[in-house]
């Protein structure tokens, strides 16, 4: 049986590796089980812990992330895979948005298109906002954990704000941008095509933030039991 002091030693070690809580939770159990197994063979806690640390040495080595902060190799690998997947989804949204606007341009008159585009922008903007408001208690709950990230998606909400910041710009400049997009397809003008790419790019960026927000919530729901008993 591992003592409370030894458990704390293990947790402190894992915390020093800057692991987000969802991964820490899983690795803590893994470490404890691995150490327990070694101790059955009459190995002291210190030796067992050293052996387990050695097994994990390469995976828990800290390296610089893209933002300059330190991250364990193993966490970076997991995070990169997740982010690539989310990026692919939002790139698909980007492509779909291009196709939808293209179809609208082809099917609608200029005036009708002018009416529809701001509605489309507002609907797209409201989806993540509704999601955020629905789970606002959970998002507020996160503020209790300032020194540690809850999961790999924690602190990525800036992207949604960045994506969202473009929406008023698009709405404010709508008349011009909408017209440019429409003209782009009518006259094959480069400015029009660029306007469409900027519009779809903002939607893509916004959806990237939204997918991260959803992944964050999904992970948070699974951690509720753990968080209720977690003390730093």
């Amino acid at each position, binding site marked *: 049986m591992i003592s409370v002091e030894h458990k704390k030693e293990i947790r402190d070690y894992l915390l020093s590796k800057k692991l987000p809580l969802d991964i820490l939770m899983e690795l803590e159990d893994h470490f404890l089980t691995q150490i327990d197994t070694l101790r059955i063979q009459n190995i002291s806690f210190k030796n067992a812990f050293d052996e387990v640390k050695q097994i994990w040495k390469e995976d828990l080595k800290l390296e610089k992330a893209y933002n300059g902060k330190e991250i364990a190799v193993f966490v970076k690998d997991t995070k990169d895979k997740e982010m690539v997947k989310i990026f692919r989804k939002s790139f698909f949204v980007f492509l779909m948005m291009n196709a939808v606007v293209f179809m609208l341009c082809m099917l609608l008159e200029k005036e009708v298109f002018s009416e529809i585009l701001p509605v489309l922008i507002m609907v797209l903007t409201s989806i993540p906002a509704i999601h955020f408001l629905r789970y606002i208690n959970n998002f507020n709950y996160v503020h209790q954990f300032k020194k540690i990230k809850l999961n790999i998606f924690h602190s990525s909400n800036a992207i949604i704000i960045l994506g969202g910041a473009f929406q008023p710009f698009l709405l404010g400049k709508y008349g011009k941008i909408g017209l440019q997009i429409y003209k782009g397809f009518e006259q094959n003008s480069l400015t029009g095509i660029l306007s469409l790419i900027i519009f779809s790019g903002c939607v893509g960026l916004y959806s990237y933030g939204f997918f991260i927000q959803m*992944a964050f919530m999904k992970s948070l729901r*699974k951690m509720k039991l753990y968080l209720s008993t977690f003390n730093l």
Partner: protein
Amino acid sequence: MKKNSLYKGTLQNIILKLLSKEVKMYGYQITQRAKELTEGELEMTEGALYPLLHKLEGDGIIKSEVQEINGRNRKYYLLTDKGKKQQALQEDEMKSYLFNLKTIFDI
């Protein structure tokens, strides 16, 4: 993998097969079961296992649940319905692949 890089491409198949037999397993248990079944030949590195488990979960092939066991929070992994179908399909493909390999290496 510690001992044989040939296992590397089959890690996903191995995990899904183990989950199909054991219903639900946690990370450490998966590494130990694989080691036990292969009499120590197959040693999964944890650094390969967990990112793959998270990827499979993200793809909806497996799902996880946290349970409190002896005062510890333990994360168990289970196959989803989609995962069960995929596992059956991959097992058939793997058996056919192994049969063909055997045929070639038996000459």
